[in-house]
């Protein structure tokens, strides 16, 4: 099957996924007791004001009618008004989503760029000192709570050494808004002081969030490499006199990467959801905080908006994973 076919099929599937997710989220968030109208009117508001607010929000209509109205607005790209911030949900998402994606991408890059070489090294030096150290590191990574590591890093690099900032995304004014990713926007507009500041702010949170996944990537690559290195074609390559580096990097690694791609794709989903603690510790203004705050306040337009956008992102990441698969493995490309 061609790339185009896969993409087309997935995009059609996306519509159904979003529909399903919105239905379930809508049902759950409207069935939980708690009165958003009172939240908006103020806790001490009289019942009359709350009733007025309920009518304004359309909460006095039957659930099915409310859901259809939501879908109609959704189709027009209108996610409604947040009860908590009283701003359009879309504006809030546009504001906070890029921060989370930027952090997740940086964390993933860190995990891959360090994790793949470490995994390879660990596999070819199986049971030797390098392998022991790497495995210890990856177990530590997997079992270290992010908030604890984050606080430790802040204490050390900001508090003691003073070489990294302690919180936020940037010092001074942010770069011109193009994509919402500060590093990218700063680079695209040639705003070098902003780029330096954005990168400095990104470093510790990305390290914190990436550390857990570093452990996962390292272990995954290591075990995949160990398996691949037993294969016949590796022995053939050895017999035909290829250098060790050529065998490991060109023959073994490429095949070991295939199963790892799925895992890394799923890890990206995890990163999106798992960023909450890291975001809190570093005052990183991302989705995590926004969602937790929305759930606590039962701010259902915001909860719905996030769910719809996040599930879309998840489907797209999976699509990207599959396309990468096809790119890496000609067999899959042929079969589809």
């Amino acid at each position, binding site marked *: 099957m061609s790339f185009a076919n896969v993409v087309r099929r997935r995009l059609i599937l996306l519509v159904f996924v979003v529909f399903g997710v919105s239905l379930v989220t809508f049902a759950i968030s409207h069935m939980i007791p708690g009165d958003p109208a009172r939240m908006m*009117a103020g806790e001490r508001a009289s019942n009359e004001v709350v009733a007025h607010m309920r009518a304004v929000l359309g909460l006095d209509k039957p659930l099915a009618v409310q859901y259809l109205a939501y879908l109609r607005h959704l189709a027009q790209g209108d996610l409604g008004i947040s009860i908590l911030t009283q701003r359009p949900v879309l504006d809030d998402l546009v504001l906070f989503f890029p921060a989370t994606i930027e952090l997740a991408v940086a964390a993933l890059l860190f995990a891959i760029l360090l994790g793949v070489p470490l995994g390879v090294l660990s596999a070819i030096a199986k049971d030797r000192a390098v392998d022991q150290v790497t495995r210890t590191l990856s177990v530590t990574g997997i079992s270290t709570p992010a908030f604890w590591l984050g606080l430790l890093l802040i204490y050390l690099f900001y508090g003691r050494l003073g070489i990294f900032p302690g919180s936020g995304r940037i010092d001074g004014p942010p770069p011109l808004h193009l994509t919402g990713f500060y590093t990218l926007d700063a680079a695209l507009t040639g705003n070098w002081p902003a780029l330096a500041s954005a990168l400095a702010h990104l470093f510790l949170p990305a390290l914190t969030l990436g550390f857990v996944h570093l452990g996962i990537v390292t272990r995954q690559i290591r075990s995949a490499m160990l398996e691949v290195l037993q294969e016949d074609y590796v022995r053939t390559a050895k017999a035909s006199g290829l250098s060790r580096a050529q065998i490991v990097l060109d023959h073994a690694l*490429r095949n070991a990467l295939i199963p790892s791609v799925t895992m890394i794709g799923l890890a990206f989903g995890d990163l999106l959801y798992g960023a909450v603690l890291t975001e809190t510790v570093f005052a990183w203004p991302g989705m995590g905080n926004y969602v937790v705050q929305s759930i606590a306040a039962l701010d259902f337009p915001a909860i719905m908006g996030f769910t719809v956008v996040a599930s879309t992102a998840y489907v797209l990441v999976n699509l990207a994973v599959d396309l990468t698969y096809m790119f890496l493995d000609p067999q899959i490309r042929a079969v589809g």
Partner: protein
Amino acid sequence: MAALANWISALGAASAALFVSAAMAPPAGATDRDTLVIGKSGDPDNLDPAVTVTNNSWTATYPAYERLVRFKVVDGKGSTNVEGELAKSWEASPDGKTYTFTLVDGHKFADGSPVDAAAVKFSFERVLKIKKGPYSIFEQIGAIDVVDPHTVRFTLKEPFAPFLSALVDDAGSIVDPNVMKHETNGDMGQAYLADHTMGSGAFEVTHWEKGQQIAMAPNPHYAGAKPAFKSVVIKIVKEASARRLQLEKGDLDIAEDIPIDQLKALKGEKGIKIVDEPSFQVTYLYLNNTHKPLDQVKVRQALSYAIDYKGIIDGILLGQAEQMRGAIPDGMWGHDPSVMQYSYDPQKAKALLAEAGVKNVKLGYLYAKTDPTWEPLGLVVQQALGAVGIKVDLQEFAYPTMRSKLNEGDFDIAVGNWTPDYADPSMFMNFWFDSKLKGLPGDRAFYSNPKVDELIRKATATVDQGERTKLYQEAQRIAVAEAPYILLYQRNYQFAMRDNVKGYVYNPMLLQIWNIASMSKE
């Protein structure tokens, strides 16, 4: 596949280089003398005075607007008496239904347009038309008339004695009528004012990076003395230890919402001072007066005697609170130092329960994790009531669910905090005990006593403060004796700041609000 290996190593080298260069960029050091940096734990929700009801937003809005009246500062201390701000003088009619204000000259909004009677009328009508959270504070207003550009008259639906105190609330902020130029879909400028300010206060919000910081700069047309700060930055730092660390490093001048144990550690540290003042924030337990056996006065009294108040204050709040005496807190006018206060007396509690003839009682304690003290408090209550033979189940819910259970009276015992919107005893007496306000609006114990209703309603309709004090004291004696609530404690308000910050005036009615116009740094 050498390409892949090359690609990986090239990318690795590039990103390493970027991170190293980033690491060499100097982090922000101590802040400038003409900049004040305030570290907060949460981002404001909305900056529109007709919409927001959270003190967290008022940090930014309060200094950006002026109001008809303000709290007097007496000997460097904030009081709960009012004096004119935009109003030069005022006159109340003998029946307490009309208030006529004469405005001062020369006050201007940040865009240079004058603050006049029309702007005052516009601002209050805006709150009433938008009908969101702040509406209830001014719902007694019947009509507002512009007598002349300097005179404005309010006619109330009924006499409402706390009216002047209510004008100090953030919702009483006078908004530039030019906001209507930003109106979309008939929202009276709500979308615009959600993240802008248009007032005549000393500062205006110049920029808000949501979730990160709010930047404020002096309003060039401000009529008062020129502020010392050229810039005020409100930084959002969610994690308490990170806030503390930034204060210690000098990146923050003020850090609010520091947990009690961390404040203790900060105390005595060089360059840092702790502000620690009694506040009007009280914590109390609602006893559902309609549930058996809590409908019996003796049972409710027994519960009030079963609680170890001092133990709670010392154990949970590390001593940073004071046991309540009556419903009107200490420091608020109308507080009665002679009203009966329950003390820890388990024997008396047992005796009262025996007199009431109840046994094998099981009660639920409703709480949420919104306030970190509510759970430990529940454990203490469980233990204390267990000691007098009442079994308590802790029932935790998400706050929105807890809120709706409170409103419907679906609980036995529930915990809550209360802070007054305006400096008037009615915020406690009328809200807590008026049987018309059952549920969340105020009477959360579902208490009902016609005599108390009569006294407190009369008190809000009376203008004379001495007369009102008497009425409230009489009502309070009855209500305290009938123990619809367990009155726990009045918390201290605390935050930490650098010791070179001068001129802060604490006012228990203005928590999380700093008088940035008259503060400075050495």
